[in-house]
């Protein structure tokens, strides 16, 4: 069931750099959202911004859902200025959730930047604790490390500028993990830029690991009506199908995604 709910802003705080957490009082959506699902938020006070903005739900606590977001454009700038007690129109929960983790596999969460927020509920829901790999351009883009640790996950960090953890990419951490534990039965859950998802998918397919990828595409309606956010996948019969990230996704199994060009050696 998709709801359109008017949610009161309980908190909207900066958490370093351009990153913020928006806390929304919610009955219907918070009560039913699953890990990996998203919500579509109407930008208040600005009729010139005609589209809602999609956000992963970071977590649900005390009857509120929390959205971890980065101020990147006009819409998120307005959101950042939205005060406590303001009312926001929220559509959700939208999309298909991550499936339940395979109890026989070691879960590995792979996050690029604020992709970490979309994986937090997965970390909460997994019976088995595994490893979280956090990657970003710089130390300021490594998010929620202590939160994942306090859930009992092992956290490894890579930054492209080397300001925190390994100097390199999050997929370098993934390569090292796979190399360190040959014969381990892994399952990957990933959210981040599409290049990162592609790199995770490539490794998963090489190693025969099941990998669940959460995609972010420019969206119109969020409910599957406008066909803006399409992605090409292959169905069970190997037929190429153009599906909607907002409805059939945002989570797809890596092996089903048709990548636009050969992943090469990334």
């Amino acid at each position, binding site marked *: *069931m*998709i*709801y*359109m709910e008017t949610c009161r802003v309980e908190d909207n705080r900066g958490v370093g750099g351009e990153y913020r957490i928006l806390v929304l009082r919610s009955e219907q959506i918070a009560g039913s959202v699953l890990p990996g699902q998203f919500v579509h938020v*109407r930008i208040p006070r600005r*009729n*010139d*911004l*005609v*589209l*809602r903005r999609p956000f992963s739900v970071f977590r649900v606590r005390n009857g509120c859902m929390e959205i971890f977001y980065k101020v990147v454009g006009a819409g998120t700038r307005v959101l950042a200025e939205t005060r406590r007690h303001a009312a926001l*129109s929220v*559509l959700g929960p939208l999309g298909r959730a991550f499936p339940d983790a395979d109890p026989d596999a070691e879960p590995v969460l792979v996050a690029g930047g604020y992709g970490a927020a979309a994986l937090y509920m997965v970390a909460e829901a997994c019976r088995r604790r595994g490893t979280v790999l956090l990657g970003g351009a710089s130390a300021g883009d490594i998010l929620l490390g202590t939160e994942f640790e306090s859930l009992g996950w092992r956290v490894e960090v890579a930054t492209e500028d080397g300001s925190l953890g390994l100097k390199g990419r999050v997929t370098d951490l993934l390569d090292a993990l796979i190399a360190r534990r040959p014969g381990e039965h892994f399952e990957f859950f990933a959210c981040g830029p599409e290049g990162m998802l592609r790199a995770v998918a490539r490794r998963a397919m090489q190693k025969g690991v099941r990998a669940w990828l959460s995609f972010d*595409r*420019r*969206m*119109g*309606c*969020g*409910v*599957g*009506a*406008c*066909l*803006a*956010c*399409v*992605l090409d996948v292959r169905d069970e019969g190997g037929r190429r199908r*153009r599906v909607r990230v907002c*409805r059939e996704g945002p989570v797809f199994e890596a092996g089903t995604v048709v990548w636009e060009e050969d992943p090469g050696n990334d």
Partner: protein
Amino acid sequence: MTEIGAERRAAGRKEPDLSTDIGGIRMKNPVMVASGTFGFGPEYADLVEPDRLGGVIVKGISLDPAAGNEPPRLVEVPCGLINSIGLQNPGVEYFVREYMPFLRDCGTTVIVNIWGRSIEEYRLVAIRLSEAGGVDGLELNLSCPNIREGGAAFGTDARLLRQVVTEVRASTDLPLIVKLSPNVPDIGELAVICEQAGADAVSLINTLPAMAVDVETRRPRLGNISGGLSGPAIHPVAVKMVWEATRACALPVIGVGGVSSLADALEFFIVGARAVAVGTATFSNPRCALEIVDGLREYLAGHGLAGMDDLIGTLET
């Protein structure tokens, strides 16, 4: 006591009649949802009671499945958005099999937007939908800027327009609405051609050709380079064109283009539209069309108007 008072007032004042007629299509109210913004019917089922809408205009259906354009397919611009979806759809057979059962039972008028790459394709889709049962009318898409063949090529050339409308008219008994392109020097002239060729109504406007550029990458912001502009930005353009079309021909006109409030819809009615369709606004407010229905009822009652006929075409100049 207040209840008794309310009852007395209700008894003394007849509920305004919102029903309207579009070229033989009876509708319970004149507010529809526009093609391309409401999917194939069931997508908004959790959020919008379809039986409270005047009608649903289904996204463009073609003879064969169409994959549409490459993403990104949508970009927001001030007061609007540019899309280059490219009429992706599963083809008429799949549509009839998978979506018509929902649409037949959804309790409102069902109009299916159709398109083709040739006149023959338009004809074949029209014939198939005429046999399907449950379709109340067809909207010929002769105005989509996002496909190379067909689409707007038919809607901007007077000779082709006459030919396609004439041939589809001869192929179906369903009421026929022609959706016109705004990208023409004289919309009235094209509306007259539709009338002469046997159309039952016209709807206008489709999107305006548009483009946006990412100034950092210097690349187009749409995969298809350009697309069609919709939303509040185009509403005044649409009002002018609806006004011209209603003056030029006797066909009922459906006003489409940037309706996001009651006032926007009222403008269309006042200049002569017999119905309106809400498009882009549904994305930010899925219940926009329903809110306009409620607002329209209040407006008519508040202005002492008995029905839509007291409002439509009452522009004072």
